[in-house]
């Protein structure tokens, strides 16, 4: 038996994982959902045949999408998370006793159901009493909100398929409106490396810069994502992620993390020249 899962990382590059067992397959109204047991990366979740999350490297993504904003503004109390069906982002947020409310808006309930059943590693905190789950279109949800959240995290899939609306100017503009006057927006910002991902990155950046006075991009190392080099966007109405970082305060919280630390926090905003140039081109 020689079973391999293969994903195209570019039209000319493939990435393969040896599979022990195909645990689950299903089709929701929005996408195809699969859970595979792999030898190297443990359980993995794929949507429409693309890796979203693996047991072995999800900590990198989920720590970096949450802690950077919370270390910049420890007073964050009300958070909106859009997407994030696997629950990993929620798990990280619930570690902060200071957060009072987490609203999670995921368009596809089936992803959450499947992750609750097969990926308890990430879905474990979805039942935290501070968490409210909404199964609807993120763009629709945020459209009705004004001046309400301290932090919005856009933990989306790629800019095609069901996540398409979360890479649009109307979405970022509505997020701006939904944030309080010192609000922060962190978004999945694609990758600078392969052409198709880089186009997504540039377009996302171009659409966000128009709205927020502070608009930065930070990087992290994600082994199962195309090229391994991935980005998040940090946009804010007031806080600068480096100038306003209170490293002592965050370290005093004594949270256990495996990737994030306050040195990485600062360092992740240092970008390679080819990335800087691409971002500058669209500013």
């Amino acid at each position, binding site marked *: 038996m020689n079973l391999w899962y293969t994903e195209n990382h570019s039209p000319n590059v493939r990435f393969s994982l040896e599979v022990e067992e195909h645990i689950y397959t299903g089709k929701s109204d929005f996408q195809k959902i699969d859970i595979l047991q792999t030898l190297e990366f443990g359980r993995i979740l794929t949507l429409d045949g693309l890796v979203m999350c693996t047991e072995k490297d999800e900590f990198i993504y989920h720590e970096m999408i949450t802690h950077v904003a919370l270390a910049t503004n420890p007073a964050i109390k009300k958070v909106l998370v859009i997407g994030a069906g696997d629950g990993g982002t929620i798990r990280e947020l619930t570690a902060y006793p200071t957060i009072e409310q987490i609203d999670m808006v995921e368009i596809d309930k089936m992803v959450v159901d499947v992750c609750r059943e097969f990926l308890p590693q990430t879905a474990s905190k979805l039942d935290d009493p501070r968490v409210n789950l909404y199964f609807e*279109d993120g*763009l*629709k949800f945020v*459209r009705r909100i004004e001046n309400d959240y301290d932090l919005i995290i856009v933990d989306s899939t790629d800019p095609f398929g*069901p996540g*398409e*609306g979360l890479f*649009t*100017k*109307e*979405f970022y*503009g*509505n997020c701006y*409106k939904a944030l309080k006057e010192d609000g922060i927006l962190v978004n999945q910002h694609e990758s600078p490396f392969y052409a198709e991902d880089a186009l997504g990155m540039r377009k996302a950046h171009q659409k966000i810069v128009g709205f927020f006075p502070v608009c930065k991009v930070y990087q992290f190392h994600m082994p199962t994502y195309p090229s391994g080099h991935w980005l998040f966007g940090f946009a804010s109405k007031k806080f600068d992620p480096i100038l306003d970082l209170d490293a002592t305060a965050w370290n005093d919280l004594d949270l256990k993390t495996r990737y994030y630390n306050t040195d990485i926090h600062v360092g992740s905003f240092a970008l390679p020249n080819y990335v800087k140039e691409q971002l500058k081109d669209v500013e």
Partner: protein
Amino acid sequence: MTNFLQQKVPIMEALNQYKSMRVVPFDVPGHKRGRGNPELAAFLGEQCLSMDVNSMKPLDNLCHPVSVIKEAEELAAQAFNAKHAFFMVNGTTSAVQAMIMTACKAGDKIIMPRNVHRSAINALILSGAVPVYVNPGVHSELGIALGMALKDVKEAILEHKDAKAILINNPTYYGICSDLQALTDLAHQHDMLVLVDEAHGTHFYFGDNLPASAMSVGADMASVSMHKSGGSLTQSSFLLINNDVSEGYTRQIINLTQTTSGSYLLLSSLDISRRNLALNGKEIFQKVAEMAYYTRTEINKIGGYYAYSKELINGDTIFDFDVTKLSVDTRDIGLAGIEVYDILRDEYDIQIEFGDIGNILAYISVGDRHLDLERLVAALAEIKRRYSQDKNSVFIHEYIRPQVALTPQEAFYAPKQKLPISESAGYISSEFVMCYPPGIPILAPGERITEEILDFIQYSKDKGCFLTGTEDSDIANINVLKEFVE
């Protein structure tokens, strides 16, 4: 039984059969199934080019159908409850022109609302028929032209008993319908033919709870844009005839201007789309109406926009409303429809059907996805947040009643002179001026130019409307009649 027959797609079946025979082509088109033009074949797809073939015995001939096209036309006629359906490959424009030219000879009168599409007035230039315009009703708040009032049509008919036909929009671009049954009965009492421009009404034949279709009320001819709500390729259309209209004579009229090389891409798209509508149309348009309803409700929740619907119905000039249309009045956010139209495209990558001074129209179809509707609503909310201004900044022009001095044909061919448009007030125009879309003339040949019209043209230009119609492509000059007509 009907459904069983409607399963057939004679043109598509004949094309598939022909392809499977691997016939060696020593006929046109010269690209020879795409082999002679690899770049085009790569761009459009090999299957597409292999279906781009010439008329021949097994595939019939559009100018004189005797086999598969004839059969396909009969199936279309059955699907639309018409006596006969003609496959049209030069747009609904050609269908509208064929209707008018079938009904009227030079000098014959035809009663029509002034807010017709340019294709109808073009037909008057070609045929020499004489228009008797009925001013459409105008909505006092929205400022849009409506349907024709029954009373106005009655007056026109009594004043012009020699008119040969009446032309009716069903619906208008905005989705507004006149009382088609009453107008048809009235015209028939006076022995006039009823011609219906259903460029925006294909779905009336298939959906539930939609306005009446031309054939259902016994109208004589109808032009149906299958390529709009019907799903066929751009430029393909049906001309339907009913009652005593002669199939042979109508075909002769069509053949006056129609290509002798009818495209099988267009013809097969009509055939396939007709089958789809006949079998699935009810569900399709139910879904479209639901999507339009949802989007309309959400847009109205934003505030400042008015997405209108059946509440406008007044029993006469708005006898019915097409709920699949998403027309939105934008003036309360202080932006002209055309400005919202431009911002949607330039800032949000959303292309809608058209924007005029007071309104936008987003075309909803079975091809839409829910997430795209959300994008449209969210973008409109953002446009309001970011761009709205004093609502008095949009100046609504009332419908301008045209002063008709000459027939369109007389004016178009009369000796003329070129004037700067700003100095043309008082003269008779020899040509059209219109915003496109929607393609409804602000000024048609034979109409007197007034200061009011010039103001409206300038205002439309300033707001960003795309003006067309004059010989001068910049619309800086206009051709007017040399002779001054009182």
